[in-house]
């Protein structure tokens, strides 16, 4: 009896082996590329010295973290970071699904390929260039909006780069403009993976197009949405630096609505160039993201264990 159990156990262990082997190259890569450099977390607690190196430098406790909180902007930049990310998650997901559904409805027509390629193009531009485009539209003297559109409507020109009220909308639009095509691809792929016979059956039962979308496509997309959202939550304390720095042209008047944790760190460390402090900022952003994602994952696990991340 005992023997049988051990044999069985052995077998089971052996059973995992082939799968582990398949995963092994990827695991090794992640260990090398991601986990070993995580040792750099030391830097966040060290007063870095070039002579002494990472491990030899003096410990300085949490000194490197202080600069993140000792500012009147601490609350403002945290709020901005979170709110923008939430807006990106919600609006981005909704619109990306919409585009994906539309594309899939059109099937394999030639124009679909063109649509998809065209929507992807903005993603290939760097933020610096996008900054130029936005400037081309919003510039006070020669900008497209002031010079052409507002003139045509006989409205007074607006000084966009000091008009705080408009920027939340501008930033969200620019983000969507750049990323929509990219995000919709994920959903297009998911929809492509749905078994076609389900739709056929529904059509035979007389379900309308809208009904099919709402009762088949959207529910089938739920796992993807959950996973993507969970992943975004993990990075909720990070922000796309280029979007918040290059696009508003670093305009001081807009800091109230454009300052995020990343831009604060960049502006603060531009001169100091301090290895320890930038490492500290990274640790802070990750720890918060980590805690939030654990919470979110727990909630998902409770209601929908299948789709939890881990």
């Amino acid at each position, binding site marked *: 009896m005992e023997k049988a159990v051990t044999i069985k156990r052995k077998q089971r262990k052996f059973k995992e082996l*082939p799968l582990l*082997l*398949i995963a*092994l*190259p990827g695991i*090794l890569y992640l260990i090398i590329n991601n986990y070993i450099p995580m040792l750099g977390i030391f830097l966040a607690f060290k007063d*870095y*010295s*070039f*002579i*002494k*190196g*990472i491990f030899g430098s003096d410990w300085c406790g949490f*000194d490197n973290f*202080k*600069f993140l909180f*000792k*500012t*009147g*902007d601490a609350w403002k930049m945290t709020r901005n970071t979170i709110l923008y990310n939430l807006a990106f998650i919600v609006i981005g997901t909704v619109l990306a699904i919409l585009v994906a559904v539309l594309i899939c409805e059109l099937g394999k027509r030639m124009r679909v390929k063109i649509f998809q390629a065209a929507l992807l193009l903005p993603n290939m531009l760097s933020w610096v260039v996008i*900054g*130029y485009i936005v*400037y081309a539209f919003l*510039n*006070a*003297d020669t900008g497209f909006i002031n010079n052409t559109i507002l003139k045509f409507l006989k409205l007074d020109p607006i*000084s966009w*780069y*000091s008009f705080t009220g408009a920027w939340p909308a501008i930033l969200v639009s620019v983000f969507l403009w750049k990323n929509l095509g990219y995000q919709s691809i994920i959903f297009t792929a998911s929809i492509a993976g749905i078994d076609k016979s389900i739709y056929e059956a529904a059509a035979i039962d007389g379900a309308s197009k809208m009904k099919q979308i709402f009762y088949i496509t959207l529910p089938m997309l739920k796992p993807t949405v959950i996973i993507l959202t969970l992943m975004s939550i993990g990075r909720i304390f990070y922000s796309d630096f280029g979007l918040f720095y290059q696009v*508003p*042209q*670093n*305009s*001081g*008047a807009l*800091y109230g609505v454009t*300052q995020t944790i990343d831009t*604060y*760190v960049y*502006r*603060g*460390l*531009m*001169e*100091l*160039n*301090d*290895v320890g*402090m930038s490492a500290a900022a990274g640790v802070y952003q990750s720890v918060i993201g980590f805690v939030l994602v654990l919470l979110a994952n727990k909630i998902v696990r409770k209601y929908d264990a299948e789709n939890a991340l881990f």
Partner: protein
Amino acid sequence: MKKRILAVIMVAAMITGLTACSSSSGETKDGTEADTEDADSGEGSYDQVVYAFSTFNNIPADEDLDTVEEAINEITREKIGVEVTLKPISIADYSSKVSLALQGGEKIDIFQSLGDFNNCVATDMAYDITSLLGSCAPETKKLVGVDWLAACSSDGRVYGIPTYKPIALTPMVIYRQDIADELGIDMSTVNSVEDLTPILEQVKEAYPELTPLAPVQTGQIGLHTCFEDTDYLTDDMFSPIGVLMNGEMTVTDLYSTDEFKAMCDLARNWYNEGLVMKDSATTTSTAAECMSSGNYFGYIAAYSYPEKDTAASLMAQCGGYELGAKMVGDAYLSTSDVNSVSWMVASTTDVPEAAVKFLNLTYTDEAVINLLIYGIEGRDYIKNDDGTVSYPEGEDSTTVPYTAQLSCGTLGNFFEMYPMQGTDPASLDWELEQNKSAKTSSAMGFTFDSGNLKTQYTAVSNVISQYLPGLLCGSLDPETEISKFVGALNDAGYQDILSAKQEQLDAWSAE
């Protein structure tokens, strides 16, 4: 079972395949790295020195670099028993690449502090060369002089050698000579930025479609450079925190002074009257671009050359319009002007003597300096009869195999370089004179150690970048915004920095 084994083999093959790739590629290193390896093993009896310099030009191909290296080595082997490896790094990546390389334990013995002097010292990047200067670089020590070396010191220890070049910056207004002539404007009456207002108005009136004043670059219309007799005490010129004014030794809050208010009022006035580009605080265009468009009358910036030379050298990049230049203030020297580009020996070096000896040559040996800057005579440049040099027939800076000509203000001794064709050799004397006669800060040689104030610095830098560009470009109203600005600064720990500065300054002057 067989298949399973196959799978295992496949995976294994993949992994070894991957590592094989990386190891085999490790063997095919490019020239520079191979040289570095040689350096480690100490080829021959010569000390190996790696000289990392920033270049604005193209990075030359290895073969072309090698010939220049070899030509320099012929001199250095004989004179100082050293072989040099040149490591040109493009200016935009310079600081990050050098700092990474040093952290990664790569061999770089000599590098430049590009504006980061304090930081290089604070993070132990730089080697203390105090004692080596006398023994390995006596000529340079004499040439550069005690005052300038003091500006590259901290706690009495010398960490760098400043580039020897015209450094005394004089604020100037660069303007369209053709327009000035046409309107009969006499620019010689302009002696300060305030004097500029009526002229800008006159231009505006005559040419309503012109914007009289262009910004220098994003967030600057040049007024930064126009505070008279002000020492920023080693802070960046675009975000000064606590300054010395009028030769006094009291650290002052620039932003609460009347001078600052007056400057902002001036900018605001220009802004409201439409005398300056409205978008200056956020523009993506630089002065040269604006001027090329023909839409602007002039701009304000600080240069280190005589009026005539400055105007002449700027013509090409400003669209070929005839330009004039007029000084609107006095040349002024403070610590950061001197140490902004200084040469340092890396703290990780194993050949400090050899490094300093080679640095010495870059300040004193005409042949070495010109090899560094222009490359090989005949191939990369030709000498003209009047002592100037130019590119060979049909070539320019982008096509010759090697040139670092645009870096001429950052490599060693500018005054030993052959002048480029088109420059007046006589202006060198003027520049040398400016360096000596410029008004010098009473705190010349003082360097501020901000090590314990990093937290405050980050917060304060953020506040400054929020308000300062707007105020000095006129887009913010000084009446209401200055007090907000100062309030925000104080919240960010501004006073801590001021008092620490004062403390260190007192200690310094007591010495």
